[in-house]
Every structure is written in structure tokens, then in C-alpha cells.
């Protein structure tokens, strides 16, 4: 005989209430990146052909560095969310799946952080 109360039987059987957060974060970063990525591509065309000094001069403007850091944060977050879904959908073997998830999620954090630190170093002239 099951002695659990009706509440404890029901608890944990529903959704983990995580789906909406993942979904929303993916959309919010996408919306944020619409203007930011187009701005960045435009700037890239101007700066990429130039010298190191041109890039430094651009990133030493406070708003340029700020917008680029905002873009990088959204980009790496969006990337981590997207890669996670792709791996969860197509990789069946649990061990491989978890390994790939760890690599991509930690990799996103590592390279995202390194990019932002690089922008800060250039912006502060270090």
C-alpha cells in the first residue's frame, strides 16, 4: 500500500519548469543580437582591414567596448543554449552526450570570458 500523501505522489511528476527559461533566454539573446550583430558587422568592415592601432582606437571608445561586450555575452550564451539543444537531440549515448555537453558549455564560458577580458584589456590600454 502506498502511504504517500496525494501531494507527494504528484510532486516531481510534472515538468521541471526549465523549458520556458531556456526558450526565453534563447529568444531574448536573439532579439538583443539583431541590432548588435549588424552594428558589429558594419564596424568590422571598417576596422578589420586596418591596423592594430585602428582597432585599439575603436575599442577605447566606451560605448564601442560596452556594446561589443554586450554582444559577446549574448553571443556565447546563445551559442551555449543552441549547442546544448543540438547535442541533446542527436547524441544518444549518455556518456558521449554528457562529455560533449560539458565541453561545449564550459568551452562557451571559457572563450566568452576570454573574449570579454580581451576587449577590456584593449579598452583600458593594458
Amino acid at each position, binding site marked *: 500500500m502506498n502511504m504517500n500523501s496525494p501531494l507527494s505522489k504528484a510532486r516531481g511528476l510534472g515538468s521541471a519548469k526549465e523549458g520556458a527559461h531556456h526558450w526565453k533566454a534563447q529568444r531574448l539573446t*536573439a532579439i538583443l543580437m*539583431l541590432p548588435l550583430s549588424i552594428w558589429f*558587422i558594419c564596424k568590422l568592415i*571598417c576596422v578589420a582591414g586596418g591596423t*592594430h592601432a585602428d582597432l585599439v582606437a575603436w575599442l577605447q571608445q566606451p560605448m564601442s567596448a560596452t556594446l561589443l561586450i554586450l554582444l559577446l555575452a549574448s553571443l556565447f550564451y546563445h551559442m551555449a543554449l*543552441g*549547442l546544448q539543444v*543540438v547535442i541533446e537531440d542527436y547524441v544518444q549515448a549518455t556518456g558521449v552526450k554528457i562529455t560533449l555537453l560539458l565541453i561545449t558549455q564550459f568551452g562557451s564560458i571559457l572563450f566568452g570570458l576570454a*573574449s570579454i*577580458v580581451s576587449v577590456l584589456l584593449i579598452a583600458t590600454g593594458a
Partner: protein
Amino acid sequence: MASNNRPLSPHLDVYRLPLTAIISISHRITGVGLSAGTLLLACWLIAAATGVESYDKINAFLGSWFGMVLLFLWSFAFFFHLSNGLRHLFWDTGRGLDKADVEKSAKAVIISAAALTVLTWFIALVGGAS
């Protein structure tokens, strides 16, 4: 065995994917490809922060024919993912979801991605030189 004769979802080996399905999987493929491009962007920024020498080195790689091919593919993947992402955001409002609309917006995504890629490279190569 009877249990092995259950109906299957569209069998990818024998089922010709409609345009909408090709665009759908391309969104994921370009997404994964753009992740590689994002890694390159990170390397570019790290090189720039490291110093002039490493910045010039990575720019020399990006300026080589192989680097230019990568940049071109990356730009197309970016504009495709951007255009189709906009289509997804539009769908999220509950609009444009019937068969005819979905077919039309799929074609619009291809045209938009191609046009934006060509426009960007035109500005970068022709506009940048002047």
C-alpha cells in the same frame, strides 16, 4: 516481430525533404557552423589583446584565400541564421504558420541571406578600397 513493424516517422533515406525541412535543418547546421566562427572571433580578439604581432598574424591568416573562404561561409551562415531566426521570432507571435506562408517565408529567407551576404562583401571589397 510485430513490435518492429510499428509506423516510422519520415524515413530520411527515402524521403525527399521539402524546402521547409531543408531550411529547418540548415538553421541548426549554420548554428553549429557559426559556433566555429565565434571561436575564431574569440581567437581574433585574444590575438588583438595579446599584441600587434599576433594581431597581424591572425589577420594574415584571415586575409589568405583559406581565411577568406571561411569568412565568406561564415557571413552567409550568419545572414541565413539571422534571417531564419527572424522568421522564428515572427512565428513565436503565432503568425505566419500555415502551409502557404511557411513556404513563402522559407524562400524569403534564402533570398534575404544571399542578398545580405552579397551586399556585405560588396561594401567590404568595393567600399573599403575607396
